[in-house]
């Protein structure tokens, strides 16, 4: 490394060039010409303290009246350097920071890391541990989709579904708390298995949720997808063509709503998914309404998966013996899970030490958000809010 201290934006710019000002790429700053009036474009800062940016996202948009001409996502307000911190954590401690990356579906990040470590250290995972992981991940997927579906209804102005979905989400979080000890920061999945077996009596609250999940979700579907205003707001808004989705590395429901059938649970089954029967819903148009439909159907499928997992939960050990001070051999692995937002990958490089040499979190929402600059231009402000919401971004995971 050079002795020169690297400071400022100059470090990432070629020699002699000046940093560009913070303005959107397609900025025009010209009279609009639409109505032959000398109207000037408006630069609007949406966020980082805006009710609809779902966290601390900052959107810089250029407006002609209410029409969005250019937009640029500005992220990093929640950057905590998780990838750097991971280099000083031992393997069994990693859950504490990985939970905080994607804070609405911590189990997925934890499991991705556990799978990567197990691959690297060649640890066998008991069958029951895999099933428990699948169970908690599916529950977590439902909780995450609930907390997407509600706010996206709020983005469109409907407040009721949000609060109704909180009711169901609470039931799930109670179950997750009973299993792991915490409602969101679980720290439960470890390399080799899970920390503790499922508690006795977890069946009852889970079945109680399973009994109402489809019915109550149906009510929300009537309130949102069945409502003409909501349909008018979502249909044809934020259309992502399949080529665009692929080019921007989108995954998860955003990719599937564009009609591309790719789900890691089917493509590369991990945990218990190889033994479970479920469908992968697909969209056709790739607009915000398709993303809504795909995610709602995913909840129904998750309910189905949870029912199967609960019925067929195997007996046995919940974890294999793993040394507390795990030192995987030097090497490099990549393991991924299908998180509620898409392919969440952990790229792990070990040098044989007690902590990872490098841990890279392939964050799905980070890549899904990449399309925003292209997606939002051309719509109205209201469309921008809905399109952005329909991407299901979680800033904790994007900024890491």
């Amino acid at each position, binding site marked *: 490394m050079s002795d020169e201290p690297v400071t400022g934006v100059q470090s990432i710019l070629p020699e002699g060039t000046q940093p560009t000002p913070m303005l959107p790429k397609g900025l025009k700053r010209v009279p609009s010409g639409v109505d032959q009036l000398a109207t000037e474009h408006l630069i609007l800062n949406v966020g980082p303290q805006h009710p609809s940016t779902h966290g601390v996202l900052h959107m810089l948009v250029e407006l002609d009246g209410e029409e969005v001409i250019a937009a640029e996502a500005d992220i990093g307000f929640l950057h905590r350097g998780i990838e750097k911190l991971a280099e000083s*954590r031992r393997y*069994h*401690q990693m*859950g*504490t*920071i990985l939970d905080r990356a994607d804070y609405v579906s911590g189990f997925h990040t934890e499991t991705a890391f556990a799978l990567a470590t197990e691959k690297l250290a060649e640890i066998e995972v008991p069958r029951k541990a895999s099933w428990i992981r699948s169970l908690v991940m599916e529950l977590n997927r439902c909780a995450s989709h609930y907390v997407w579906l509600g706010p996206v209804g709020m983005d469109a102005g409907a407040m*009721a579904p949000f609060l*109704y979905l909180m*009711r169901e989400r*609470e039931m799930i979080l*109670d179950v997750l*708390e*009973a*299993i*792991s*000890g*915490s409602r969101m*920061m679980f*720290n439960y999945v470890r390399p080799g298995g899970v*920390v*503790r077996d499922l*508690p006795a009596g977890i069946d009852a609250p889970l079945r109680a949720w399973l009994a109402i999940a489809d019915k109550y979700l149906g*009510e929300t579907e*009537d*309130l949102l997808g*069945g*409502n*003409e*205003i909501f*349909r*008018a707001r979502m249909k044809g808004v934020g259309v992502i063509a399949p080529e665009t989705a692929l080019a921007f590395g989108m995954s998860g429901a955003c990719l599937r709503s564009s009609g591309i059938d790719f789900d890691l649970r089917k493509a590369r089954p991990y945990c218990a998914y190889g033994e479970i029967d479920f469908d992968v819903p697909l969209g056709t148009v790739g607009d915000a309404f398709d993303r809504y439909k795909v995610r709602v159907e995913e909840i129904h499928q998750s309910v189905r998966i949870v029912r199967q997992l609960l019925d067929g939960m195997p007996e046995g050990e919940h974890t294999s013996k793993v040394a*507390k001070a795990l030192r995987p051999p030097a090497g490099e692995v990549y393991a991924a899970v299908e998180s509620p937002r898409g392919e969440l990958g952990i790229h792990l490089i070990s040098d044989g030490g007690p902590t990872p040499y490098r841990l890279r979190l392939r964050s799905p929402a980070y890549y899904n958000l990449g399309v925003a600059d292209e997606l939002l231009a051309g719509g109205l402000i209201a469309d921008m809010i809905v399109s952005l919401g329909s991407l299901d971004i979680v800033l904790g995971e994007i900024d890491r």
Partner: protein
Amino acid sequence: MIEGTGWLKGFVITFRNMLRGPITVRYPEHKLTLPERSRWAVQQRLNDDGSPRCTACLICVKECPDDVLYIETSAAEGGGKHIDRYVYEIGACMMCGLCVEACPFSAIEMSHEYELATRHGGDLVRVLLQDVDAASPRRERKGEADA
């Protein structure tokens, strides 16, 4: 735009939910029962006679990712260790439970104490043990094999 009856259905659903009644828990009067595994503030587990189980082995201190535990020890008069202070900074604790998992003597546990809001910053630093002799690790290990 209002061609369908979906919006009318919405009215029916919100009304039905209104009849279902609130789900809010009126917090200070009513409290939820926490699951047994709920992780909240760390507390000491004492023996039946009130003596600490802690041996001041410092494993929990080393394990804690946030470095919220702190033990000051000195040599006890009759040999062994004397715990001057066992300090727990609850304000920095994230209740991950790693210290409890690591403790070989089951000397600490996660309590269900969740009402942690306080008016004084000083309350966020707790002294869990003060001026007591640490338990002898050998005796504990025999009695508590695989505890």
